[in-house]
């Protein structure tokens, strides 16, 4: 037994057209390949079989081989409606010598069982075939499932340039026997043929009077073997959806100019999209995990993940920390409610460069790459909802990767705020408390990201000379970078700046030769006080402060009592001495002035004190140098 095409007619009581179904997905902000990965993986994850530890999720991009081409042509031409190619574009496609397909397979999933006619009643556990092959817009029936709208399958049709997919599935029937089904499905445009209106929905299978049944068991297996599509091993269950002539345009160029990506690049893109969108499900050590694979013409393509991508590793590290005491709680105060957990990982040198990451807003400049400054939003299904950008860190090698995961009991609320493509949380879709929760979570996250990025606070006016370039280069020293194993692939350390305190810089130089001599010199100056009122003392380490006038180095100084004190700042050279003869055109550090405890500013290197007090010395630093700051009693 073999199949033929069945064209759906309009019923007397109306029906939805193919165009209507195709438009259900809307126009997502993400590129089609990304949406395809996200939606199909989510379908697969929701369909995981009871007891299966791993869901294998494989995409295979291939060209129909010469041995199978005739089978494709003869099988899929059988009973093809005689309508123009505009309404049934598969017809001209089958004549191509290079017929491409993208098969999306899941294993360790339930498969599509249950009734094959939508006018038969079926309970919740038996609606897989109905909701995937026949109906549209069914509410989810999986605990913790992601497919709230049931539109996920729409993307398969959108992803085919000829609106046609082949569905091959294997499941256990109620008696526990393994059954297979095969059906083709096409969705393009409604039309009228011979005075009869058709919806534009077609199925390829065992055509009946008023619907189409799939090929089953041996007949289904035989067709799949003839077409050369992925089959089932041993007692595997699952589904393979094969997209004929996949529409894989380069998402980085405007749609009008976009070309089909060559297979290797398309495979790379899909592999990257799997990595960036599915990494939480693919983490090792999960109780149940998704195992994504990408194959192009038989050759595997590596999926970026925790092991081989520094940025994903950072997000994963933050994710793993969510449930530890390091995980921060995001709470709503009124009404009091725990909304989500939040964790962050600082990165150094980790950058994303892939087009798929750029599609998710993680990177603008593909050649340079970009350090992450994003929070990854997640709900109970633990798929990436989206990456929300925060302010970038002040230095391009520094970044942060944060994860925000909504508490399970609020999953439904946040799910409702998502558009059909599950890539945003929009509180205007909600009302009352639910809107409040979404809004508060978003605001708290934004505040936290501002804090992490070191957004400016406490600015002081401490100079009128622009030192913007210095600020930019030194700024990264302000953010505390925690070193962890994730900073791979960064550039070699080039230049840095440091600062030192008087009498102590030898140690900061890492015991460089002669360091002791130089420091003794500055100490001696401070010790040269003759008034018997003790020495001025530098308190703590100096630190950089970003002000409107640029970057300033602040050093707290304890003045011992009545007297006049003078501050000096020098560059320390590699031989541990104070620089006396700078290179031509060198910028040298200078003392800007002093700030008293009450905030009064005094310009110049000299300060008078009446009583013991603590003041702040303001120094204009220079880039790429080690500085020595010292304060001494001024000569009478």
């Amino acid at each position: 037994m073999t199949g033929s095409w069945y064209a759906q007619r309009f019923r007397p009581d109306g029906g939805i057209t193919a165009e209507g179904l195709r438009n259900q997905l809307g126009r997502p902000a993400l590129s089609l390949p990304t949406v395809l990965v996200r939606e199909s993986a989510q379908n697969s994850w929701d369909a995981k079989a009871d007891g299966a530890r791993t869901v294998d999720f494989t995409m295979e991009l291939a060209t129909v081989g010469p041995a199978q081409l005739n089978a494709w042509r003869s099988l899929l031409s059988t009973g093809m409606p005689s309508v123009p190619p505009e309404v049934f574009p598969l017809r001209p496609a089958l004549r191509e010598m290079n017929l491409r397909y993208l098969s999306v397979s899941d294993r360790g999933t339930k498969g599509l069982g249950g009734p094959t006619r939508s006018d038969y009643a079926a309970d919740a556990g038996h609606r897989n075939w109905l909701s995937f092959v026949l109906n549209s817009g069914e509410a989810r029936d999986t605990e913790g499932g992601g497919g709230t709208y049931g539109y996920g399958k729409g993307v398969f049709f959108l992803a085919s340039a000829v609106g046609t997919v082949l569905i091959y599935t294997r499941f256990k029937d109620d008696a526990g026997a393994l059954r297979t089904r095969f059906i083709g499905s096409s969705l393009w445009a409604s039309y009228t043929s011979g005075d009869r209106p058709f919806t534009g929905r077609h199925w390829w299978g065992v055509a009946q009077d008023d619907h189409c049944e799939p090929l089953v068991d041996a007949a289904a297996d035989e067709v799949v073997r003839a077409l050369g599509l992925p089959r089932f091993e041993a007692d595997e269950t699952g589904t393979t959806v094969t997209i004929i002539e996949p529409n894989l345009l380069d998402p980085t160029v405007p749609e009008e100019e976009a070309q089909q990506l060559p297979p290797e690049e398309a495979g790379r893109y899909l592999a990257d999209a799997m990595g960036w969108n599915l990494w939480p499900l693919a983490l090792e050590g999960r109780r149940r995990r998704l195992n994504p694979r990408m194959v192009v013409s038989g050759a595997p393509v590596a999926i970026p993940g925790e092991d081989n991508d520094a940025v994903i590793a950072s997000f994963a590290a933050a994710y793993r920390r969510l449930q530890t005491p390091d995980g921060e709680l995001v709470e709503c105060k009124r009404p009091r409610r725990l909304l989500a957990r939040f964790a962050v990982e600082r990165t150094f040198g980790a950058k994303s460069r892939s087009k798929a990451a750029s599609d998710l807003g993680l990177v603008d400049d593909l050649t340079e790459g970009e350090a992450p400054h994003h929070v990854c939003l997640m709900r109970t299904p633990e798929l990436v909802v989206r990456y929300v950008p925060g302010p970038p860190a002040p230095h391009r090698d520094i970044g942060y990767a944060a994860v925000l995961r909504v508490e399970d009991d609020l999953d439904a609320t946040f799910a409702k705020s998502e558009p059909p493509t599950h890539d945003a949380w929009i509180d205007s879709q909600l009302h009352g408390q639910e809107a409040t929760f979404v809004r508060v979570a978003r605001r708290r996250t934004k505040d936290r990201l501002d804090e992490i990025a070191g957004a400016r606070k406490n600015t002081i006016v401490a100079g009128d000379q622009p030192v913007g370039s210095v600020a930019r280069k030194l700024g990264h020293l302000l953010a505390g970078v925690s070193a962890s194993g994730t900073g791979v692939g960064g550039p070699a350390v080039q230049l840095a700046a440091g600062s030192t305190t008087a009498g102590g810089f030898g140690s900061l130089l890492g015991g460089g030769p002669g360091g002791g001599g130089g420091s003794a010199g500055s100490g001696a100056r401070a010790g040269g006080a003759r008034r018997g009122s003790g020495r001025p003392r530098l308190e703590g380490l100096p630190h950089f402060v970003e002000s409107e006038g640029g970057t300033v180095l602040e050093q707290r100084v304890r003045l011992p009592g009545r007297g006049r004190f003078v501050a000096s700042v020098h560059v320390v050279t590699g031989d541990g001495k104070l620089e006396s003869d700078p290179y031509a055109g060198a910028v040298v550090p200078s003392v800007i002035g002093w700030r008293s405890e009450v905030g009064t500013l005094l310009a110049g290197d000299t300060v008078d004190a009446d009583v013991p007090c603590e003041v702040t010395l303001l120094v204009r630093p220079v880039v790429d140098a080690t500085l020595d700051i010292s304060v001494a009693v001024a000569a009478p």
Partner: protein
Amino acid sequence: MSRLYPRLLPGAASRRFKDLQVMGPQPPKEGEEPSLADAVFAATGGTRVTGPDLTKVRFDLVERASASGFPTQRSRTGYAEFDVSVARYLHGACGMVPGEAAQRSVWSYFGLVLVPDICAWRYPANETRGFLDDRFVGADLTRHTLGRLWLRAHLLFDDGVGDPYGLIVALGEADMDQILARRLDVAASPALVREIVRAHRDDPRAGSGPKDRDVLRDSLKRLLRLAAFLDLDSLSRHQLASLVHEARDSSRRTLESR
């Protein structure tokens, strides 16, 4: 196998230097082996040189010095030739390992016993201070007449190229002194010194614009700032080279604009 050379201990060295100031250099007499009085050897670490060995070293050094004008003619070019050929000889032919060459008392023996006449020719007494002690007594390896030549060869030894001593000729003594004597920390990294000398030698813009020497000196000052916090030993040759080129480019640009 490394060779151990006699060491003249500090007390003996300063006594002999005083004698030198008064009586002038007293080289070993013709046909006699160099004296080993007051000299000691390290207990382990190599083979002790014998009397005939020392005679041979002295002979070789005298031969090289003579080719450059020793003992009567003194000229800038003669000194430059002497420095280059003796640097090669000491580092390449004397079997002295760095641990031995780092012993200042070894150089005291060379300067005060083995070849005091050559050292006195190379650095003659000046009218006010007489002979300068650090040219004879091994106090500072960068100042001793022969020690600095060994150090120069050691720093510039460029393994894996046709002539491993090819960089020695690239810098004159004054420029090399800039690096060695005054810029201690830069000199602490031989790889950096080699890149500095190489960049100086191979600069395609040499001879145009600012003086080559000014570019070298200015770029050294830049590198010295960086050396305060960069771990130069951890950089690859390529990274060092780009560091040096960057410094030279910046210096050249700034000097040009003056």
